[in-house]
């Protein structure tokens, strides 16, 4: 039914109905399409309105103002009231309507009729879909094995996330698994263990004078971009330094590029730490109470030299020169510059950051005195959050929750299903080996692991192993292809929600439907409530809310009057500062309130102990290292069909083909020219892609764009080249650890 929107566009023009009917009629090459004639505003029939809502294309939570004409959303603008984006909208947000009106959206609930992966579906009603899902899940509880339900949840906050957590808890499954192992998990863990705060950092670029970016996420794709943009809008801007194996074409405002050896980021930061300690440049008092800084002893009597000794002996700028590719003198100079131009800070790319890098960045920022100060890293656990209260658990739930989590993580408390510790990359092995127990039902919410996760095709086999799979994706993707039920979610333009951007900004942001749902989709939060009710009294009693909206309002914390009315009038609500008055100016600036004291660190054990990062593949056979990156079109593989994003001018070559970036030096040596077809081979897979020869990339490195592959293509995409090697202690992905070989194809 690709003509749905077009027909709507033509409106009630009955005489045109005959022309518009049918599926994509072949156009008569001589037919002339009459252009729509623009009419003066005010004279056009129909209505125009602007609907305030919140973007859903990354975690930043920017306020939007969507222009709606005659029931059609026609343009995205920024909501100037939102302190998150101050009226600006990034490239993704501008392309958002392509998602809403995409002709390939799943048009309603579907049941699989063919074999798995065959892509044959039967349309069913939502009642049938809920009943089928409730019966399948009910059997697991009846059989006393609720733990065999696994949920992959791509959200990390918000009410839907909280409802999922509650659902799994009262169901009795410890397997609420997030994507933190390939994302922000390392940073979340570093913040938790070193500062004992449960939050993710934001960065006050605006008031900073010097920023060292480690990795390029803030420049290309991450939710920190919008805040970096404010800094540029100001009268003065911070000096930007970037340490990364590759510099994206858009990173022209970077004042200095430090061409880093892949995997050398932690060493670089510990080298900076060395200089700060050696020259007594930083505020060492933040480490006064930290365990593991000075020599310490384990319970079993094993002694450790402590972080200080380790950094002073093993991380001298001279020793790490080879590991980082950055001259020793430069490292010392960099450390002195960060001190001389305070407020300064280190910002690591969370999507690629390993544990060591995240912890080292936090340490350097603490020593620079740049935590919770203007121009520094903002750790604000006071951001609004969702609190749905305690739920009563029945016997089945309690016994299920006693089972070990299927991904092998530790420290999982049933009350607080911990999103910093889940190990998504352990799942294929767990599913295929049925250890510690077989997974019998898999729910995919905001998740397309078969496309987006390293390990590639192994996920297909793993998902196929699970007897009952449900996907909530609004689009058919590589993982949904193996599902038994498709329960398509609304796009964010059709949803009602209250969004908590967090990351140092104490705001709530309203998301509301800008148009009526275009197809027969349902908000996943609503579906959770319905399934819980269908699963019987013990589940239903934990979800007493009539609908999703009631659940959102019940869970808002802090609870204050007037939140909803302010949200509805301006689209955003700013948290009231502790003193009792809304601290608007401060809040706009993103300044943390009254927390100027240096941030003490409590635990630095384990840091700087590990051997240099391992790589997968023989260095002789595979002389290159793959450096994956997320471009503007990356989101769990879900933005591949947003054509405007793919055809951006700064995307070199044909934007619909997968590309690998290679340095001019390597390209000359291998006889590769810009646009050539090349075969990239890694120990995991071999994939045909097209070469982009450019200057901003280190020799010996292949830059691999994630999320640029084909949609539902039989040929595996370039992300299948990546190995899913993880840090064994935490399960977090080592992104730059796969070696590869590249050659020109005839």
């Amino acid at each position, binding site marked *: 039914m690709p003509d749905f929107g077009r027909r709507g566009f033509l409106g009630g023009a009955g005489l045109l109905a005959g022309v518009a009917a049918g599926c994509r009629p072949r156009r008569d090459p001589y037919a002339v399409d009459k252009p729509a004639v623009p009419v003066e505003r005010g004279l056009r029939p129909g209505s125009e309105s602007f609907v305030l809502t919140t973007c859903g294309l990354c975690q930043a939570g920017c306020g939007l103002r969507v222009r709606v004409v005659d029931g059609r959303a026609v343009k995205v603008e920024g909501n100037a009231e939102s302190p998150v984006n101050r009226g600006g909208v990034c490239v993704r947000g501008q392309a958002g309507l392509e998602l809403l009106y995409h002709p390939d959206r799943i048009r309603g609930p579907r049941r699989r009729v063919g074999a798995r992966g065959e892509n044959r579906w039967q349309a069913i009603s939502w009642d049938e879909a809920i009943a089928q899902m409730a019966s399948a899940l009910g059997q697991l509880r009846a059989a006393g094995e609720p733990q065999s339900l696994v949920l992959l949840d791509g959200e990390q906050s918000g009410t839907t996330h909280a409802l999922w957590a509650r659902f799994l808890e009262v169901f009795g499954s410890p397997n609420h698994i997030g994507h933190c192992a390939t994302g922000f998990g390392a940073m979340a863990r570093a913040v938790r263990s070193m500062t004992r705060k449960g939050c993710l950092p934001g960065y006050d670029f605006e008031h900073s004078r010097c920023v060292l970016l480690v990795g390029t996420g803030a420049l290309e794709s991450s939710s920190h971009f919008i805040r970096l943009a404010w800094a540029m809008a100001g009268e003065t801007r911070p000096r930007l330094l970037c340490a990364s194996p590759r510099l994206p074409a858009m990173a022209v405002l970077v004042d200095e590029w430090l061409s880093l050896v892949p995997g050398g980021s932690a060493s670089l930061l510990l080298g900076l730490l060395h200089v700060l300690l050696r020259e007594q440049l930083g505020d060492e008092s933040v480490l006064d109470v930290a365990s593991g800084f000075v020599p310490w002893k384990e319970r079993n009597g094993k002694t450790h030299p402590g972080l200080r000794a380790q950094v002073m002996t093993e991380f001298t700028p001279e020793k790490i020169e080879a590991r980082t590719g950055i001259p020793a003198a430069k490292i010392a100079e960099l450390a002195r510059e960060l001190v001389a131009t305070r407020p300064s800070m280190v910002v690591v790319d969370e999507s690629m950051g390993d544990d060591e890098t995240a912890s080292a960045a936090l340490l350097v920022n603490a020593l620079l005195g740049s935590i919770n100060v203007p121009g520094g890293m903002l750790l604000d656990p006071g951001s609004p959050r969702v609190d749905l209260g305690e739920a009563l658990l029945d016997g089945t739930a309690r016994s299920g929750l006693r089972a070990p989590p299927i991904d092998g993580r530790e420290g999982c408390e049933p009350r607080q299903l911990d999103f910093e510790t889940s190990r998504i990359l352990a799942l294929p092995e767990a599913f295929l080996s049925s250890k510690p127990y077989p997974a019998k039902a898999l729910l995919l919410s905001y998740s397309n692991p078969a496309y987006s996760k390293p390990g590639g095709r192994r996920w297909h086999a793993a998902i196929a192993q699970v007897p009952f799979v449900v996907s909530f994706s609004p689009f058919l993707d590589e993982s949904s292809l193996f599902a038994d039920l498709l329960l398509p979610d609304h796009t964010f333009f059709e949803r009602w929600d209250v969004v908590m951007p967090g990351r140092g900004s104490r705001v709530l942001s309203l998301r509301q439907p800008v148009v009526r749902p275009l197809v027969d989709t349902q908000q996943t939060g609503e579906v959770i409530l319905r399934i819980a009710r269908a699963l019987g009294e013990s589940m239903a009693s934990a979800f007493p809310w009539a609908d999703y909206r009631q659940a959102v309002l019940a869970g808002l914390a802090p609870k204050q009057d007037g939140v909803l009315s302010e949200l509805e009038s301006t689209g955003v609500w700013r948290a009231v500062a502790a003193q009792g008055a809304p601290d608007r100016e401060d809040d706009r600036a993103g300044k943390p309130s009254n927390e100027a004291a240096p941030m003490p660190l409590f635990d630095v054990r384990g840091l700087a102990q590990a051997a240099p990062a391992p790589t997968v593949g023989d260095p002789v056979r595979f002389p290159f290292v793959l450096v994956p990156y997320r471009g503007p079109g990356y989101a769990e593989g879900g933005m591949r069909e947003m054509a*405007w994003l793919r055809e951006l001018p700064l995307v070199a070559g044909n934007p619909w083909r997968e590309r690998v970036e290679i340095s001019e030096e390597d390209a000359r040596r291998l006889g590769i020219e810009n646009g050539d077809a090349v075969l990239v081979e890694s120990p995991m897979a071999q994939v045909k892609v097209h070469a982009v020869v450019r200057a901003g990339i280190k020799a010996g490195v292949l830059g691999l764009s994630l999320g640029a592959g084909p949609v539902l293509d039989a040929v595996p995409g370039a992300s299948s080249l990546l190995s899913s090697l993880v840090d064994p202690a935490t399960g977090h992905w080592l992104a730059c650890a796969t070696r590869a070989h590249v050659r020109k194809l005839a």
Partner: protein
Amino acid sequence: MSKKRSKLTTRREVLTLAAASTAGAALSKAAKAAGSSTAPSSVPVGEFHRFGLAIDLDRCLRCQACVVACAAENNVPALGPERAALTQPIHWMDMLIPAAGSAGSELGHDPVPLPCMHCDRPECVKVCPVGATYVADDGVVAQIWDRCIGCRYCMAVCPYGRRYFNWTLPVWPGANPSSANPDVAMRPAGVVEKCTLCQHRIRAVFERARIDDEPVVDEAIQRLPACAATCPARAITFGDLSDPTSALSKLARDPRAVQLLARLGTGPKVFYLRGRR
């Protein structure tokens, strides 16, 4: 501004200007004879306004939000996989990407946002055989899609490459055209299209002001075009160059201001600000 330009005007530019005015006047006559309601201005430089843009390259993060905002506002579809293999996408707001190893432009080697320059003395207007393009009273180099015969002389002559030929009917490869802006006509196949400085938005604001009998203040229009409205770094400023107090006029007088290929005498009304603040 006018003082500054007259100082720099070369003999050739004076001649060009004279020629352009003659051509413009001739066109105007022709159009009036044809009974058109949208007659091209008889004066190449706008009588009432001279709208233009300033783009601060020290703020611009090259995120390309302006590129997509422009496409969304003006109903410019993407190509999609099939057509991308055959032709280049249409970007009214594009990025100028100096070729590797080239000397670069006066703006350096980095990519820069590249809208239509809305020249005071545009080459494209001079060569159009049918009067489909003209300098409007407000300084915008406008294009009447229905009048264009697709000869593409304007494309050949524009030194900035800011004009695109519509090889096909608008086809939405990703989304269907439900999100099309009703204020902007979709271009038929076989015509040349270009940036209009969001003329429909300008017109709406000035029309509203006329009805309400209120002046249009500079602060209210600095972010008027879609590219300027979306810019998260506020690098793009819109304004009236005939108002010496406008933010744009001030930026145009800034020592950091550079016009692209100003030596050609086209009088571009887009000012790039470069050099570290």
